[in-house]
């Protein structure tokens, strides 16, 4: 019995290992940057890594040589009692200094670069506000508010202002740029121009409470045409379903606009205007829900509505005690918002 058990454990372990090998490769490897900002960080990092590898090989090589060459397990030889060599020691004080100068000069140059966004004609201003445990994105010049998916076009500069509504968070999209902390009562800046359209993963990186690990986000980088379409769609968005909409969508709208949802959420064009929770305008457009946790499909949305705590521990949405039908109606309505 015991042996069988051990074989079972070993087989499970092996299987896990193999499936892990088979899993998708690292998708967010930031040493392959996809914006100008991430690239200047990467260029500097690469220089440092190259120097570090050279130093590593030389020093570990010398260490290995010494321990292999001068091993004397059984001998009672008393080696020459050298106490030091001042010239040599000065030399190996100067050598690391030179390596560090080679790192320091580009470092300082790049530091200033990161703090000074290139002056361009019409950068897109986006304010990213960290909340426990989701992100709000405001476009102050465009009168748009959205949540958890930051949308902008490739090839245009984005100037980000990073803030927090409660505790310290950190905003990070590995492929596009480094992280900056979101600190209450302060504003930090980041900027970048994304190379090409695509979907990029991001996550809060400053421990911010229970669901810190679930405070994820996506950057949706669009082509110019898609961006213009998104802008006009967001501009003309109205949350009231048209009269030809299916019955359960209508019912969902009724539930949302008269129920507890109005306490926290906003949907443009409706009576929902609260800002405590994520703005749900054009929610059906989003690819994820729960701050980047789940694919935005019917099953996950209903599961969320039925039991928010089960979907995302600690989050501020209470269990509303929705019936299956009500949850389905609300899901249908929310998914119709596109």
């Amino acid at each position, binding site marked *: 019995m015991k042996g069988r058990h051990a074989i079972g454990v070993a087989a499970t372990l092996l299987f896990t290992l193999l499936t892990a090998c088979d*899993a998708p490769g690292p998708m967010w490897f930031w040493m392959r940057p996809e914006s100008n900002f991430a690239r200047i960080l990467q260029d*500097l*990092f690469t220089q440092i890594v190259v120097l570090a590898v050279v130093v590593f090989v030389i020093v*570990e090589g010398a*260490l290995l040589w010494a321990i292999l060459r001068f*091993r004397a397990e059984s001998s009672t030889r008393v080696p020459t009692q050298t106490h*030091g060599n001042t010239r040599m020691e000065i030399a190996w004080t100067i050598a690391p200094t030179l390596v560090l100068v080679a790192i320091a000069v580009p470092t300082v140059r*790049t530091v200033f670069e990161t703090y000074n966004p290139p002056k361009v004609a019409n950068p897109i201003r986006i304010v990213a506000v960290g909340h426990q445990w989701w992100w709000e994105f405001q476009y102050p010049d465009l009168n748009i508010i959205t949540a958890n998916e930051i949308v902008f076009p490739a090839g245009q500069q984005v100037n980000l202002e990073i803030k927090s509504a409660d505790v310290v968070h950190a905003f990070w999209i590995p492929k596009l740029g480094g992280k900056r902390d979101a600190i*209450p009562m302060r504003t930090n800046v980041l900027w970048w121009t994304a190379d090409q359209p695509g979907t990029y993963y991001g996550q809060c990186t400053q421990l911010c409470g229970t669901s810190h690990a679930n405070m994820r986000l996506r950057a949706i980088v669009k082509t110019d045409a898609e961006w213009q379409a998104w802008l006009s769609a967001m501009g003309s968005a109205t949350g009231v379903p048209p009269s030809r909409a299916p019955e359960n969508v209508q019912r969902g709208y009724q539930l949302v606009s008269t129920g507890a949802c109005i306490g926290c959420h906003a949907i443009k064009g409706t009576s929902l205007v609260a800002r405590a929770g994520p703005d749900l305008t054009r929610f059906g457009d989003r690819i994820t829900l729960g701050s980047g946790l789940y694919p935005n499909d019917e099953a996950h949305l209903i599961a969320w509505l039925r039991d928010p705590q089960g979907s995302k521990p600690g989050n501020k949405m209470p269990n509303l005690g929705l019936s299956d039908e009500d949850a389905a109606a609300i899901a249908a309505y929310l998914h119709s918002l596109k």
Partner: protein
Amino acid sequence: MAAIASAPHFAQEHGGHAKEHDNSLWSWVTTVDHKRIGILYGVSSFLFFLLGGIEASLIRTQLIVPNNRLVDPDTFNQLTTMHALTMVFLALMPLTAAFFNIAVPLMIGARDVAFPRLNAFSYWTFLVGALILNFGWIYGGSPDSGWFAYANITSRQYSPGPGMDYYTLGLQVLGVASMAAALNFIVTILNMRAPGMTLMRMPVFVWMTLVTSILIVLAFPVITVALIFLALDRMVGTSFFNPTGGGDPILWQHLFWIFGHPEVYILILPAMGVVSEILPTFSRKPLFGYHFVVYSGVAIGFLAFGVWSHHMFATGLGPIADSGFALATMLIAIPTGVKIFNWIGTLWDGAIRFTTAMLFATAFIAVFIVGGLSGVMHASPPAVLQQSATYFIVAHIHYVLFGGTIFGLFGGIYYWFPKVSGRLLSESAGKVHFWLTMVGMNIAFFPMHFLGLDGMPRRIYTYGADMGWSFWNLVSTLGVYLIIVGTLIFIGNIVWSVRSGVVAFSDPWDAATLEWSIPSPPPEHNFDRIPVVASARPLWDWKYGAAHSHESHAHAPIAGAQHGDDGEHIHMPNPSYWPLVTAVGLAVIAFGILFWIPMAIFGVFLLFFGINSWAFEPAG
């Protein structure tokens, strides 16, 4: 073993000389003997090392597969916070204190520390602080905002439970213990060296103890201030760190890291000192460039206070501050590099014997180089914008504190265990322990570099299966299991060797420093006669003559062979329970503040009663 057997048995052999030791519980509770206090520190800190290891194992097991539900997120946050706090404050620092206690008085030719009762007080106070810090496992939940506890998530509003109160009170009590111990060792080292032992003849381990103690004395007041502010914010509603009341969360970060960065060196310098003792002994050579090694240790101590903001490069302090702290941080790489080169210089042309202690010491160098180089990568703010708060940093900190501090201290345990117990640890079990730990450590922590580069943040309790992080997380966790096996073998080795190990004579390693000139274990008064020192390697002078010494005017031994002065009339301090009573007073105050204020008032009385009785205790 051959080398050990052939080591000349030079010094005083007091077989059966020492009085039967009183081993009653009471004798341990009231002891003021630095060797016994060292053993108490060693055993307690090792138990906390196991506790921190259990926490680490739970963390790694939670992360072994994506979307795991072994522990819930709040428990996970408590585990990561307590793993760091336990390892830093309850395992590594007191383990270095165990070495200070056991080795420093013996190495400088002293009969005890300067203030033996204060020494006992430090130990009991450490135990009290450890109890407070861990009280959350029993009642109310442990601290869960990270060991760095960045404001304002630590405020009553966002951390309503008692966890952060245990944090503020526990760390303050631990600070008292550390301060008292550090002052004790500074005074001991400066005033109680044997005649002839100038500062520049002190063993490097003693030097590093001195530098570490000075760092503790300068760094702990800063965290104490921060902790008092935080306690006031939480308990009486002040707004030092609360932004809605006009406070500044960034102020906490500055105060914490002004303490926190020197703290890193408080953890690593003693290990560097241990390695600087082991390498020469098992290379049969003096330390290469003693002066450079000492000065670089002092330089690291100085620079430690000028680099704290490199922990805050993502905070957005502005280009001038970022550049300044980047350059200061890079400077630290110079003395660190000098140390590594001098250690390799010590090995060079030596006659190297790979005992387990030596394996750990050389592995320390090999692994510390990795941590040092990733440290240089973290000195560059723009590069840090990508690395910070990812597993790349977790890899770095573990290469430095596991591969560095723990390897150095394991080496020290194998090295000094015979001096303390009179028996050698098993070398064959030791080598299995070493290789499991070395391989396990690299399997556990090297993949974390890849995870960091792939964008995995630290301190997350779960991750998606579609992130591409599954493989290296699995590998890393398996590495931790190897470390666990190695540690179990180590425990077995200790338990077996303390009773049945090969008997160690006074000088099993053919070493050069004073502690090896007296019996193992040493008599209570250590030295029958205080030795007179003429070089940095007094024992080698006496064993092999001054010809081997750099200082040609070294004299023949004065102490050592002759022990005509019987040890019976040497005045040694009496046992005392007042240090324990005083420490209990601190505990009563702390728990009173937590649960019932009148109890705290009683604690204050108990504290003063303890101090008063201690002060007027008759000298016997």
